[in-house]
């Protein structure tokens, strides 16, 4: 018999119905018999991703990170995409799919967090290694992803570090059980000088996810997940508003004969 293998979830069937579960265990814990009513959302998230129940400090860090990431706001491209779904009356799932797809990229999205977490794996809290890494040319290896156009974790367009970024870094660094957030807080100016860009939310998130001992793949996935609430709320809000109130923007056709190549 072909089976699906998992180390995460174990169900015991109801008597007489192998397609219904009587008991469901997550990483060994009885979800409905013991966790429910005692565990927090952050406990469950951490348990699913890491396989372990979080310490108090880990849960606190994850809770604070989740609050910081919950709503990138309507100027963010991922939320903008979700609102494009909402304004036209698209399905809820398509609004979230749009937010995920656009929030997946190298400019403030999940892939940027992945790359920034790879940098933490390579450089740890060693400024000389960061200097070498940030001076390297971005990878041009063939991939479905475009080449990075700015250092991962830093802001492509900002001219100074945003106050919310600094506030988030300070709060997360204060509660983190790991070393990276505190080191980032202490060395932010040097890293910004090395990269030529101010720190971004993605950089703070990457350090936090690394401090939670998550892999880049896990961090990318969790970051995608944690930014969805705002996209959902803004999409729902736009569903209630006339499409005439949503920008359509003006069109400037630069050259209407240059599109065709010989």
């Amino acid at each position, binding site marked *: *018999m*072909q*089976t*699906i*293998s*998992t*180390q*995460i*979830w*174990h*169900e*015991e*069937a109801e008597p007489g119905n*192998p*397609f219904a*579960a009587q008991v469901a*265990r997550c*990483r*060994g*814990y*009885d979800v409905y018999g*013991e*966790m429910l009513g*005692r*565990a927090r959302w952050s406990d469950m998230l951490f348990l699913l991703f890491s*396989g372990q*129940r979080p310490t108090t400090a880990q849960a606190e860090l994850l809770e604070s990170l989740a609050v910081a990431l919950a709503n990138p706001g309507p100027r963010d491209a991922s939320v903008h995409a979700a609102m494009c779904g909402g304004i036209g009356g698209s*399905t809820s*799932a*398509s609004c979230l*799919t749009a937010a995920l*797809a656009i929030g997946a990229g190298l400019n403030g999205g999940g892939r940027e967090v992945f790359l920034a977490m790879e940098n933490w794996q390579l450089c740890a809290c060693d400024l000389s290694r960061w200097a070498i890494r940030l001076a390297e040319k971005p990878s041009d*290896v*063939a*991939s*479905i992803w475009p080449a990075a156009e*700015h250092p991962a974790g830093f802001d*492509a*367009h*900002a*001219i100074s570090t945003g106050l919310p970024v600094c506030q988030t870094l300070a709060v997360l660094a204060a509660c983190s059980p790991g070393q990276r957030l505190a080191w980032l807080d202490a060395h932010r100016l040097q890293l910004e000088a090395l990269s030529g860009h101010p720190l971004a939310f993605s950089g703070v998130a990457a350090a936090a996810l690394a401090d939670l001992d998550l892999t880049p793949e896990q961090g990318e996935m969790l970051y995608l997940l944690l930014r969805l609430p705002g996209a959902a709320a803004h999409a729902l809000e736009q569903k209630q508003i006339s499409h005439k109130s949503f*920008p359509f*923007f*003006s*069109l*400037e*056709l*630069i*050259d*209407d*004969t*240059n*599109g*065709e*190549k*010989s």
Partner: protein
Amino acid sequence: MNGPDYLSQKAGKLQTAMGGFFPGSHVVFRGQTLHTDLKDMDWMALYLYGICGRRFSDAEMQLMNALWTYTSYPDARIWNNRVAALSGSARSTGNLGLAAALSISEAHIYGRGNEVQAISFFIATRKRLDTGGNLADCLQDEMKTHRRIAGYGRPLINADERIAPIMAKATALGLDQGRHIQLAFAIERHLLDSGRNLRMNYGAVVSAFGADLELSPEEFYLFMFPSFLAGMPPCFLEARHGVEGSLFPLSCTDIAYQGVGPRRW
């Protein structure tokens, strides 16, 4: 170019050379008016025109059509098709299911992730060979970078039933002697001769033809996006009209748990 001043210049408007919609009047599509200049264009030709900004010959269009047709499998077991089918069984919408199934097709071991590496490798290798490089070095370097030769070997079985009909079509159209498709076969021979049982798969063939048609890796990647689509609606429809929730039902014993044993919260 970056920074708030640049963003301010870009705010509130779409500056584009690609085209636009003039409500109640006309639509410009890469320098042509859609409803007059392009009104008789075949949809696939238009799709390619949108990507490449150029037109292809009838023979080239027929070949590209065949590349899509020959990989349209209405088999709901295939991972991306299964997503489309599960959306039908779960009574989701067709758009959601098909869009998710196409997204899944951007995979590493098949689909876009495989093809974008393959076409990049063929283009780079052809250039190296033209300037005196040798194939063994190219293959070694590719293995070092990607730990595989994209387009060779296959996840489920080391043979590909699509290659013969694609080559037959290409031969009939006079397009089978391109330098990249010949290189693709030369690589297969080299791998087999060196004891590596890695036969060419669909990804290598289509990528080589993409390079022969002078598509860039990015253009080819976008061209291939709908390639699996035609096989998906049948999977969705059958599941949609079957008993809800009855596609690939999994009992508790179908899940092999390999984690830690029961413990107290």
